[in-house]
């Protein structure tokens, strides 16, 4: 079986290898450049200065400038991340969907299932080997992207908890990829044709990804809140920890949200027009800034939860696929 699986998929293996080499050729030099700039521009020192305190004094303004400069210099590179966003989908479409569907579409299942090897054995060997290869590839690009993104993630804007950045690095690409492949395999056992199986992967994968990202991920654990005064705030959330800020706003003394999606900050003693306290007329006295966030320290936990969900679903789909294969003629 191993020989057959290798013979059937060696072309795909070649394409995947070429793809990985090309990506590495792009990512490794840029990653190294970013890392040396990270040290040379003093960003590393700044990050060390901010440390891993939950809150940092707001007056480390010079440090903020260094972080922003670094961001401005490299943020265009972060668009490369879109590639990593679609990689799991591509693997599902071109490796997962045809895996069983092409055999059924061409009728070759009747050739291979009537040799002296049971279908179960066939399915386990095929899913096992292709799955293991997929896992290895996904580990390379998931963890590789983590390495590449690490400097950018620490400067605040591309926090690794940020919705898109979270999706393209770490453990979740592994879960996504395995799920996309398993979905393609399962769809093939239902529709018996490559194109419909690919369509199912496209719709099913994107649908579940968006649904989980928007609806489920912010609630894997109850979010925490942080509030600070409108006038003369002294501390802010440490930007280098990569907290995931879900929403911000200004609340009045009774806790009602008086301004959504915005913050108001004034120095101590600042006065609005007509001698009113800063923002006083609009917000009322004792208004405070409010943030709902998932602490950056939960990053790996959330990565684990989300990839776990996808891996469990992938295993379930493969199990169902093996069961369906018993009834296909």
């Amino acid at each position, binding site marked *: 079986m191993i020989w057959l699986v290798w013979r059937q998929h060696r072309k795909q293996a070649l394409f995947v290898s070429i793809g990985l080499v090309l990506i590495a050729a792009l990512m490794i030099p840029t990653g190294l450049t970013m890392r040396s700039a990270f040290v040379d521009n003093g960003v590393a020192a700044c990050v060390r200065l901010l440390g891993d305190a939950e809150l940092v004094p707001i007056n480390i303004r010079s440090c903020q400038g260094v972080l922003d400069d670094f961001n401005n210099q490299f943020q265009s590179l972060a668009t490369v991340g879109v590639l990593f966003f679609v990689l799991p989908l591509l693997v599902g479409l071109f490796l997962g969907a045809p895996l069983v569907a092409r055999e059924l579409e*061409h*009728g*070759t299942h*009747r050739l291979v299932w*009537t*040799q002296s*090897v*049971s279908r179960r054995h066939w399915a386990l060997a095929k899913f096992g080997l292709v799955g293991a290869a997929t896992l290895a590839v996904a580990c390379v690009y998931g963890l590789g992207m983590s390495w590449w993104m690490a400097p950018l993630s620490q400067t605040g804007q591309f926090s690794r908890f940020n919705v898109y950045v979270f999706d393209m690095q770490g453990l979740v690409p592994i879960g996504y990829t395995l799920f996309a492949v398993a979905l393609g395999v399962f769809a093939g056992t239902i529709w018996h044709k490559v194109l419909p199986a690919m369509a199912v992967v496209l719709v099913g994968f994107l649908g579940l990804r968006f649904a989980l990202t928007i609806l489920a991920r912010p609630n894997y654990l109850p979010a925490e809140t942080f509030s600070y005064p409108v006038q003369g705030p002294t501390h802010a959330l440490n930007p280098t920890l990569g907290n995931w800020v879900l929403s911000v706003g200004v609340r009045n003394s009774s806790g009602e949200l008086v301004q959504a999606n915005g913050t108001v900050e004034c120095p101590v003693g600042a006065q609005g027009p007509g001698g009113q306290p800063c923002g006083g007329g609009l917000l009322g006295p004792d208004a405070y800034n409010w943030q709902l966030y998932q602490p950056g320290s939960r990053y790996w936990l959330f990565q684990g939860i989300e990839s776990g969900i996808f891996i469990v679903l992938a295993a379930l789909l493969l199990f169902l696929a093996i069961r369906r294969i018993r009834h296909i003629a």
Partner: protein
Amino acid sequence: MDLALETDQLGKRYGKRWALRDCSLHLPTGCVAALVGPNGAGKSTLLHLAVGLLRSDAGTVRVLGESPYGNTAVLSEIGFVAQDTPLYRDFTAAELITMGARLNRRWDAALARNRLAQLGIPPGQPVGRLSGGQRAQVALALALAKRPRLLLLDEPVASLDPLARNNFLRLLVDSAAETGATVLLSSHLLADLERACDYLIVLNAARVRLVGTVNELIAEHRHLVGPRHGHHPIPGVTAVVQADHTERQTTLLARIHKPVADPAWTMREVTLEDLILAYLSEGDTQAGHTEWEVSA
């Protein structure tokens, strides 16, 4: 009598529709059997049940005494060539032979290689680029290399031109004789089978219409030509399979158990083709009328 294939009340259903129903037949070892019927008669279903691709919904099927579904021991005794002779089209013939060696406990690679060498089939070219006839030969060689005791072929010659068809069937019969394998071959091309087969199964509208050795079946049937005939029985005739009436004359194709002595009837021998066509048209119209919900 050893049986290569044995079915009893075998049935397979897709949803509400029976693709095969009440199929009982015994295929003795060593015969070359033709499975004949129009498209959709249930031929592929019967073969898939026999090779264990399908599980029956009713009755039993036994190959060499064992149930074939999910049974790799039986599977290694069966050579199967599926409809349209599916092969991995990007594999070369040599690679397909390697594949067979990897997937079978018993594998006669030399047999496959010799056959393909004799036929002049290139070993290093992807089989997708070979002609239909050559591909069918590769598929047959792969099935034979298992040294099967039962060889099942689903419409192996349907897509071949007459010359390739003739070659294929001749080689098939020769190799069956050499290896002693029992062959069951489905087709809707009648003329080819007459030369190749010594056993006949006629399937129509999911049911077995006729089964037996060709010699016996020919001996048991006659054309009878006589005066216009009502429904009263004719001595010697077991059943009337097909009746054509004109103003004054009736032509019957009848199953007989002894020669018809009545001088009013003239007896003529039947050909295999006559026989098959008669049994096929028997079931046809019935199904049509029910499905269209009109009266016959």
